[in-house]
């Protein structure tokens, strides 16, 4: 009994790894119904008329790529399917490569033209002050786009002077940028705000849903999978739900096993 309480943690790591590999290789279907927060983002995009401007803030870097990049790609698919104008930017210096790859790869599938149907403004430091600057004048915040083009000459930005002209802002966040967009952006410039975040941040964002400061929320890989299923572009996030579900069951079993062994060993009585 005592030995079972001191299992080498590397055995647990190995079991988890094997479970992930096996459930990725073995294909089986699991239902992925959309939750209300995810449906909120989807419905908002559906409600926008063609040609509306959607600003996507890619606020993550490679360390959160596995959760947020599938989200970004699924959301971009939805925007281009609906013929919305996409404006991309980031607060993270580590993000431009990921963001540009996501935008360009999806835009190519819908034959969208850079500068007309989408634009990537790149990275700019400043966080709160950048948001305030964008709220007053987008061109002074981003005089040039990621490729060095003068933003005042780009056709896609002709009807956009500031954040007030954005119909929907979608923040893909690995940090505190959702709060920044709410405090310094939405409060003053009154645009609709949706968000996608890492699972770790998910519970902290629910109060903003309750207060309707967010129109919807995609939380972690699960949120990304739900969105992929909604837009009919099932990819890495949907296939990641199989190992996610299997490993969650294994972890629950481990928790039950650990507690049963703990109480059976009589340690609880001595504690």
């Amino acid at each position: 009994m005592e030995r079972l309480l001191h299992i080498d943690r590397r055995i647990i790591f190995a079991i988890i790894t094997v479970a992930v590999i096996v459930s990725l290789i073995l294909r089986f279907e699991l239902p992925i119904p959309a939750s209300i927060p995810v449906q909120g983002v989807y419905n908002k995009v559906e409600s926008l008329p063609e040609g509306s401007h959607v600003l996507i803030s890619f606020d993550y870097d490679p360390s959160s790529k596995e959760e947020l990049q599938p989200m970004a790609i699924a959301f971009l698919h939805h925007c281009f399917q609906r013929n919305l104008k996409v404006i991309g930017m980031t607060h993270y210096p580590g993000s431009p490569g990921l963001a540009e790859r996501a935008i360009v790869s999806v835009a190519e599938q819908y034959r969208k033209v850079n500068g007309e149907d989408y634009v990537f403004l790149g990275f700019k430091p400043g966080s709160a002050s950048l948001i305030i600057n964008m709220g007053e004048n987008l061109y002074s915040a981003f005089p040039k786009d990621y490729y060095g083009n003068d933003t005042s000459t780009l056709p896609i930005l002709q009807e956009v002077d500031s954040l007030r002209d954005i119909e929907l802002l979608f923040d893909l966040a690995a940090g505190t940028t959702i709060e920044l967009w709410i405090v310094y952006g939405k409060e003053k410039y009154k645009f609709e705000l949706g968000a996608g975040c890492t699972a770790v941040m998910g519970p902290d964002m629910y109060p903003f849903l309750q207060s309707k400061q967010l129109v919807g929320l995609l939380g972690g890989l699960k949120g990304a999978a739900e969105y992929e299923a909604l837009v009919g572009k099932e990819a890495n996030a949907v296939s990641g739900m199989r190992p996610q579900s299997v490993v969650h069951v294994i972890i629950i079993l481990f928790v039950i096993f650990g507690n049963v062994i703990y109480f059976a060993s009589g340690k609880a009585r001595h504690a």
Partner: protein
Amino acid sequence: MLFILPPERRGMRKDSNYYILVGSIILFVIVNIVLMSSGRLPLSSDGFGIILGAGITLAIYSFLYKDNPAFKITENLYVGVSLGYTIIITWYNFLKPDLYDPLIVPLFSAAAEKAPQYSLIIPSMLGVFMLLRFSRRLSWLSRWTFAFVVGLGAGVSIPRVISAFILEQIKPSLHPLFSGGETVFSSINTLLILLGVISVLIYFIFSVEHKGSIGTISKIGIWFLMISFGASFGYTVMGRLSLLIGRIQFLLKDWLGVLQ
């Protein structure tokens, strides 16, 4: 180079870990040679990029077995590469278009088309003052910058934070239980939110002894807090697992070509 020397020459005890590390590296090289010779990985920069990504992923995860030189090299590589990348991105996305091109180039180039933007000198100087903290003689100048940042930050932030994080958050707590057209479940949600807010707030009142009805309500507050911590922990497990799944997808799909 120290790491590839045998343990005896580094004054280390020759143990099984050394052989596990060398064996893993040899196995990794053999697998890549097989993948490239069989055409599964292209002989191009893309192919070498995937091999590098796979190697670094495996080196980082090798820490789960034991701390080792491969992990340490990769960890330091990550810090160095991130810093270098950040410097380059900051230069090309920020300093060059916002400062160098509109101010420095027109000042020193006769061929410049636009006049220099002299207004940029003030924020630039404030930025330089910030760096003077490293100088004993001139560090007092950095206080001007800090005064500016603190004053501006407080002035801009306080009203907006109060509005966004307090006033807007109070609204759902004061939402009527039955306002017509709502389901029973949404009314229960509203009631739970109200109960949670009040009980947790009472738990954090330490100037009153937690006995009697105050004690009972604060215990309910503890339960709300515990459920909240549990939900956060569950989400954290899900998040960490997502990262593992993403990396294994990369290894099986992009590197080994096992997944389609």
